[in-house]
């Protein structure tokens, strides 16, 4: 945690109470978004996303493995994130801490529960062989709101991913790298994160806002408006009105985000 001077805290809060922000944005406005896919040749899928000055790279590596016993006909996604010490003076080297694990789990939940990825189609032989997709989030520059940037980059990387087609001949799996195919993606879900500061909620908090927020709310939503994941954070409470307002803004913003994603990297 950075230490925020009291005067900065007061300044940001007073501005937000007047519905203004230090960087000139509206309370429900995202920072500038930059999306690029195919940035890592050795990864089967990859993307780099910049949300303001927050920047991360997501790489997807597939492997063939055994399914979980309770879902013998479904592929597996494994999401992992590294808050690299390069990204912030407050990030320490070492195994993933609670922030890093929360981030991977929330991203994972948004992807998994939206059912945007048809995991059944990632089954090769029921009960014995399925595709395992490792989704690795590499955070390289941290300036607030990793959740939304991470979900966006993950979805972009999933859309970029190509797997070899599989054939089964005499109980052996044959991988055909000449015929690559995209992942079975059937929808798009993205995330909007809000910070409660003063008596307002603001979309896409930057680092200073994140440091002084009393509560945080992330909402994952599918293109049809269904809420597929939520996560409340921060030490303070939220009112029911705050949450309803956040959902309303999310409903407005998700189609815009999806449009930008489609425009940059092509439709689903």
């Amino acid at each position, binding site marked *: 945690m950075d230490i925020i001077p009291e005067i900065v805290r007061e300044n940001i809060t007073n501005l937000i109470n007047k519905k203004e922000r230090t960087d000139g944005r509206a309370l429900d406005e995202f920072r500038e978004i930059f999306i*690029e896919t195919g*940035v*890592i*040749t*050795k*990864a089967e899928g*990859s993307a*780099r996303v910049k949300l303001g*000055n927050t*920047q991360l*790279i997501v*790489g*997807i*590596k597939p*492997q063939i493995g055994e399914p979980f016993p309770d879902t013998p006909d479904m592929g597996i996604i494994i999401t*992992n994130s*590294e808050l*690299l*010490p*390069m*990204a*912030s*003076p407050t990030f320490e*080297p070492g*195994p*993933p801490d609670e922030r890093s694990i929360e981030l991977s789990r929330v991203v994972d939940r948004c992807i998994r529960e939206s059912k945007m990825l048809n995991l059944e189609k990632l089954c090769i032989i029921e009960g014995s062989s399925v595709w395992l997709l*490792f989704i*690795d989030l*590499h955070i*390289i*520059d*941290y*300036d607030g709101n990793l959740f939304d940037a991470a979900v966006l980059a993950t979805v972009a990387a999933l859309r970029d991913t190509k797997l070899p087609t599989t054939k089964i001949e005499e109980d052996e799996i044959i991988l055909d790298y000449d015929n690559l195919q995209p992942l079975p993606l059937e929808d798009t879900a993205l995330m909007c994160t809000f910070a409660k500061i003063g008596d307002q909620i603001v979309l896409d908090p930057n680092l200073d806002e994140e440091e002084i927020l009393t509560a945080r709310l992330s909402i994952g939503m599918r293109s049809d408006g269904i809420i597929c994941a939520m996560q409340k954070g921060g030490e303070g409470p939220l009112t029911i009105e705050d949450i309803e307002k956040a959902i309303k803004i999310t409903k407005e913003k998700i189609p815009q985000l999806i449009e930008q994603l489609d425009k940059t990297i092509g439709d689903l």
Partner: protein
Amino acid sequence: MIIIITPREFKRISEPAREDGRAPDEIRPIKIEAGILERADGSSYLELGGNKILVAVYGPREAQIKRLQRPDRAVIRCRYNMAPFSVEERKRPGPDRRSVEISKITAEALRPALILEKFPRSVIDVFIEVLEAEGGTRCAGITAASVALADAGIPMKDMVVACATGKVNGNIVLDLSEEEDKKGEADMPVAILPRNKQITLLQSDGNLTEEEFKKALNLAIKGCLKINKIQKEALKKKYGE
């Protein structure tokens, strides 16, 4: 990260070409950018062939760990890390024995260039992230790290620049690719201080005669001097002449 293919700088000579068509003394296309991260005090991005390396520098800052502190100077600490998606087969995140060794020799390779006496009891952190690996990442990491250190404004006597040489199919060649590293008979990473051509990193893995070693070292120095020009250009581009 955009791949820009730099025009080949070396003239072809009549010795047998390599698998990727390079002359024995030819380095892969290289690109360096300085100051590309927002939070870090200094940063750089380097592409060399299929390698993509990102380096961030923090410091000089207070050494949190007391036993690291030196009363008369700063300490340099390096962390070389490979992204899980940087290699063909996914790499498990976190340090392994190889990356710990590379971190150590990288810090030692950079140390002679730094004027650390100005910052007692502090630490300079160098974080090297291999986003994509294609042979020669430790040298690429050192080359990029010294650009990031300069970008961070750390006082330095010189840049440090590194390049590997080795023996492939009986020939001494410069800047081994991943393929050549796998198939070759020897791989020898070298880092130098280009001004006085002193050696700050020397490793060798494989068999070389004394003659071959001398030839390889000479070639490595030649390669380093070429790369040093690109390091300087990256800093000039960021800060002007």
